[in-house]
């Protein structure tokens, strides 16, 4: 029962985000601040994870290629497919649900428990718009982070293969080009845009409606991570069915 009420209030919250806009000059600076924290601040961890996971995918593929009839360029091919289709868009988003999501929940939640949201509210500000809208806009840049992750993942795979002597540079690149379907990149892009919206709004919901004190802020961050990842996985399943199947 409670879950239905929560889903209902989530959609009501979304509606209020787009009512009565905050003054543009104020909103603009909030958006830039969120871009800095949510997008720029995530590039480091995205780079490290993508690069090494790309490397591992290449190594694993190579180690499992025991049949001499299968060409070595499969390494490049497999790295490209797994990074572009799932790793960068989906699994990176789950990692972001931990990083960006818990930041959003705890920062909005802290504002709730310290009455900062009440203070904004009594000044006559639409706090839904003021707090959540800038995050939605900032995360519109998130697909670019994912493209960056795709490049680094594939680059990581390339370096692991060539430096580790798994295949030659030419063979890896040949693998990257086999059966390349540009539509797959579009599919990944569409997914990522949806995920960015979920990443901005689900954690905001958990922070905004928080009740209690500092302990609840911690708990809400965890709950928000769980829900954001579950919803991302479900949406991923649905969209893959719709677009690719």
């Amino acid at each position, binding site marked *: 029962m409670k879950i239905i009420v929560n889903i209902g209030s989530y959609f009501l919250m979304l509606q209020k985000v787009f009512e009565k806009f*905050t*003054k543009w*000059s*104020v909103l603009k600076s909030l958006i830039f*601040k969120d871009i800095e924290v949510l997008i720029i601040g995530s590039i480091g961890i995205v780079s490290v994870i993508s690069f090494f996971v790309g490397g591992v995918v290449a190594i694993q593929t190579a180690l499992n290629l025991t049949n001499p009839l299968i060409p070595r360029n499969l390494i490049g091919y497999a790295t490209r497919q797994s990074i572009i289709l799932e790793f960068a868009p989906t699994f990176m988003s789950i990692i972001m649900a931990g990083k960006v999501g818990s930041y959003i929940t705890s920062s909005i939640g*802290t504002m709730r428990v*310290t*009455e*900062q949201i*009440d*203070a904004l*509210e*009594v*000044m*006559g*500000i639409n706090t839904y718009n003021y707090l959540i809208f800038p995050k939605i806009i900032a995360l519109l840049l998130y697909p670019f982070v994912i493209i960056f992750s795709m490049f680094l993942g594939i680059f990581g795979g390339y370096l692991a293969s060539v430096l580790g002597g798994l295949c030659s540079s030419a063979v890896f690149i040949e693998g990257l080009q086999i059966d390349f379907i540009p539509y797959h990149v579009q599919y990944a892009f569409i997914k990522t845009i949806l995920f960015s919206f979920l990443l901005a709004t689900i954690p905001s919901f958990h922070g905004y409606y928080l009740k209690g004190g500092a302990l609840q802020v911690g708990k809400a961050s965890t709950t928000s991570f769980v829900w954001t990842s579950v919803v991302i996985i479900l949406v991923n399943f649905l969209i893959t069915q719709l677009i690719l199947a």
Partner: protein
Amino acid sequence: MIVVKNISKSFDETTVLNGVSAFFEKGKTNLIIGQSGSGKTVLLKCLLGLHTPEAGKIFFGDNSLTDMNEKKRRLLRQKMGIVFQGSALFDSMNVEENIMFPMRMFTTKNDDEILDRVNEVIDRVNLTNSNSKMPSELSGGMQKRVAIARAIVMNPNFLFCDEPNSGLDPKTSILIDNLIQEITKEYNITTVVNTHDMNSVMEIGENIIFLQNGKKEWEGSNKDIFKTDNKPFIDFVYSSEILKKARKALKES
């Protein structure tokens, strides 16, 4: 002037306010006092429109808050200044930005004009030279001063303070209380202060309502306190055994 008529408010099954009426006068420091949990904050948040009472009415001058549409309510709120219990400073902004915030939001003044006014109120609350400090770098008393400055920067007609001296030492508390009272007189505004601190009650209690279990049990001014025979109020005022004995001795002599 604010008139509260018979308001009731409950959460789920528990009644927090039960038919409370009050009259908060202009140019005076009006106090809502009572133990923790007696409903002071809930009453204050009803006045702010953050809670909607199930019954009763609240008038600001001639206008009923409970019957106002959203737009009128927003305009009224721009005439209110609020000091929250934990100060509620925006912790991503420094002192100056915190105080500028309502003006940036709701006036068309440029940054220079805004800054002039901000410095004026910063001086008024005796915080000169703290413009660029962050809230986390300030002591509790200084945070309260910033919160007061932010509350008065827009020249409000109404000032609300929720336990302005919670967490402060007695001496700083009295300084903050006096500041609130001076501002009330200077700007001739209607000020409502929540407190459970007897020092504040004696110091600035020009018009007091005493809440217990969501009901108004007593009202009067700090001059009436020693004359009253109201049992719950006496229990609140003479909370310690020593004070009770002192009162008894005083009565017998």
